């Protein structure tokens, strides 16, 4: 047996199989016409560079793969020293960046491998990422070749923030709505299967790019691509990392740290009246089943993972599928579709929030370990709403001064003990009132 193209071993019920039913829950998705046994896909990146990795990913149970970006011949040439991490204090990787380019292997080899892998793994989603120069001929040349592989769809890499923009590709296209629309249009013209447009976050308003993709005929968008970044500086040699020789450059940032930024961008598109039903493949720091559930709740129909796999290996999909399906079963969600976009109605603009809502902090004295972190945070930087008292036996006691508390959550955030400080909504007796309608608002609109 050829080890590179090993046929999938199928054990029904085996944990890492491609079975869509896990813990009694159906995890399968139909994303813009692309079917996959689960919503966990590997994003276009080093883990999906070649058949060897992709087959290992499928064997591990990933529902889909976006093959690392193909381009024109000759292939890109990469530098040595490519990744750099933003560490937490315990050396856990909070964020991660890279200065790698698109595939550095020949187009012919990639196409051959894609064809074989799709043939061997018909039930898994296989999407091909593409980036060629911004002219119709270039796209018209490559698209039929990709179509011939039998892959399920393509993803347009319009977001790569380093190396490629300097050649008029990647983010150079993704930052220009007119070019997004034009390239998408060419793809729909020369390719019959679903077209996903991958958006760059290195812009001011993500909705503009999504709207342009939709105008060009995109079947879906995926986001976010990586963020322009410098992770750290080697202060001895005064050079950023990753260091190539004695120099460095900005790279694309990803990993847990970008998740909040990515989720906002996903939500912005999901609740934009101009793109209400545009399918979204969520990307950005997804490391656990919970991250995935959050992206799906904000409107993602599938999720793409890269950094977490690069840090832990492909096996993490096991825990993701298991955790997500158990949570879905507990909540009674029979399918991914059943909770997709569920958090969108509650995600709104600031001006629509209830100005009369009031919540205040409550400290559970039995759980308090007397560290004083809530006290000093509130005292120095917030509203001086926590009193520092001393018990008869010398023990410290911290109490919320309810009339001063504005419900900012800072004390709860600084508290090292889970559930020790809770935020308790107060009965104010006042009706719902949006700032938009508040008499105190000089620009109010009549309700």
């Amino acid at each position, binding site marked *: 047996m050829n080890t590179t193209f090993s046929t999938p071993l199928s054990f029904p019920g085996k944990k890492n199989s491609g079975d869509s039913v896990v813990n009694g829950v159906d995890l399968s998705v139909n994303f813009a016409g692309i079917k996959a046994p689960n919503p966990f896909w590997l994003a276009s990146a080093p883990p999906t560079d070649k058949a060897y990795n992709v087959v290992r990913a499928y064997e591990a149970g990933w529902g889909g793969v976006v093959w690392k970006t193909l381009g024109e011949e000759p292939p890109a040439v990469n530098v040595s020293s490519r990744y750099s991490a933003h560490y937490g*204090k*315990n*050396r856990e990787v909070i964020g991660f960046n890279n200065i790698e380019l698109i595939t550095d292997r020949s187009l012919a080899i990639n196409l051959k491998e894609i064809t074989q892998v799709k043939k061997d793994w018909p039930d898994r989603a296989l999407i091909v990422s593409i980036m060629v120069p911004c002219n119709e001929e270039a796209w018209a040349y490559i698209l039929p070749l990709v179509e011939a592989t039998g892959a399920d769809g393509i993803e347009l890499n319009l977001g790569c923030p380093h190396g490629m923009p300097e050649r008029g590709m990647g983010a150079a296209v993704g930052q220009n709505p007119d070019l997004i629309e034009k390239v998408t249009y060419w793809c729909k013209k020369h390719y019959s299967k679903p077209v996903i447009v991958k958006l760059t976050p290195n812009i001011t308003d993500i909705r503009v790019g999504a709207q342009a993709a939709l105008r060009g005929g995109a079947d879906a968008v995926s986001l976010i691509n990586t963020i322009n970044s410098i992770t750290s500086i080697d202060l001895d040699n005064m050079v950023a990392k990753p260091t190539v020789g004695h120099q460095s450059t900005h790279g694309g940032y990803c990993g847990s740290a970008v998740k909040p930024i990515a989720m906002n961008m996903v939500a912005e598109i999901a609740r934009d009246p101009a793109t209400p039903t545009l399918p979204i493949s969520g990307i950005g720091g997804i490391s656990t089943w919970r991250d995935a559930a959050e992206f799906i709740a904000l409107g993602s129909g599938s999720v793409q993972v890269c950094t977490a796999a690069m840090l832990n290996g492909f096996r993490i999909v096991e825990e993701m599928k298991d955790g997500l399906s158990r949570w879905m079963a507990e909540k009674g969600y029979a399918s991914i579709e059943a909770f997709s976009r569920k958090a969108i109605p509650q995600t709104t603009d600031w001006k629509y929030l209830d100005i009369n809502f009031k919540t205040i902090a409550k400290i559970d004295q039995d759980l308090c*370990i*007397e*560290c*004083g*972190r809530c*006290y*000093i945070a509130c005292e120095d930087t917030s509203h001086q709403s926590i009193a*520092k008292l001393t018990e008869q036996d010398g023990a*410290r006691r911290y109490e919320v001064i309810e009339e001063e508390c504005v419900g900012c959550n800072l004390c709860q955030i600084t508290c*090292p*003990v889970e559930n020790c400080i809770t935020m308790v909504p107060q009965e104010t007796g006042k009706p719902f009132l949006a700032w938009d309608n508040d008499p105190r608002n000089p620009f109010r609109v009549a309700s």
Partner: protein
Amino acid sequence: MTSQLNHLPSAKEVGTYDPQTLESNFSDLHPPLTQRQAMIESQRCLYCFDAPCVEACPSDIDIPSFIRQISENNINGAAQTILEANILGGSCARVCPTEILCERSCVRNHDAECQPVLIGLLQRHATDNMQFDSHPFKRAASTGRHIAVVGAGPAGLSCAHRLAMLGHQVTIFEAEQKPGGLNEYGIARYKMTDDFARKEVEFLLEIGGIDIQYAQRLGDNLTLDTLRHRYDSVFLGLGLGASRALGLTGEDAPGLMPAVDYIKTLRQADDLGSLAVAKRCIVIGAGNTAIDMATQMARLGASEVTLVYRRGVEAMSATDHEQEIAKANGVRMVTWAQPDDILLDAQGRVAGMRFAKTADQAGRLTTTGETFEITADAIFTAIGQGFENASLSDATAAELARDGERIHVDEMFQTSLPNVYAGGDCVKPGQDLTVQAVQHGKLAAHAIHQALAAKQEAA
């Protein structure tokens, strides 16, 4: 020093002697943290506000601050934070009973994990790994004052260093041939490895302005009267060199000696194999000295070490942690028994001890009338220390007001004699901890400085 044990075999002659094993028996009891362990441990600190650990530290070290500096890989900064509060922070990191001080008050004990941050080991990490190009503390402009410090133990050294920093000239008078006091002569060998006490004093003296005169013993070749006349102020940082006696006949028999004297020899020994070892020995007492003695004798090769205390385990002044160390070394603990008679062999040497069983009768310790005997080749006493009679016997020293046996001081560490200050083990009974002595010396230095400055202003 151990001539009382001349008839006993040496460690070389006991059991299966292996010099390397013997050496390793006295290597670091608690190995230092690695860089990685220190980084992880430092992350556990919650950086409490008004931190309970600081309140518990007798020397007021800003613990959350130095731990945060470790976590930011600022080791010199961490060391300086420690040393500016406690110039002997390195030895305190080794000998402090952190389990009853900072670590006991750590809020992480209340947390679900029930494990304090390892503050002592983190302090050691900082002080072991600091690398200063020059001494981190600078001296203020010279005040022209010269102060005498008696005793180069933790209290005296701490006082001298702070006085030097404040711009004074200091002369330390030390009775022994080396500085360090109990750090050099008294602490168990496996707590102070690699000649650390000497290195620490060398570091401390780098500040300049301090000179030490050795073999200067108060009440012998030195009088308080002379010091008061020659110097602007005097700080007494005396140790308690005399061991309490049992008060039994046969106390001077070969085979019986104070534990501190044996430990002193052990600490200074170049060749552990040359030390006299009692195959079976008895240690009388329940403090850390008793534990140190018993444990070290076990590690030297004694096969039976029995520690005997007249009260129960809960009344022992040695901490639980110390007791555990002794037990882990095979030391047998016998409680509720007090020495009744020293048993001698035909040559008049120690052959064992008879004990009277004791009981607590409404708070009073009484004997029950029952006795038992323990066979032993040696008996080590560790039932408390006091002043050497001569040290406070000159006319001026005799005037010092006392709190019991100890020297009376006010809250500014001033004795009843003008310009004479005191601190450390020689003042009011406390826990007699190194860290407390360091604090006394430091605070006394500030008191001396203020008093001299006030005098100058008045003049």
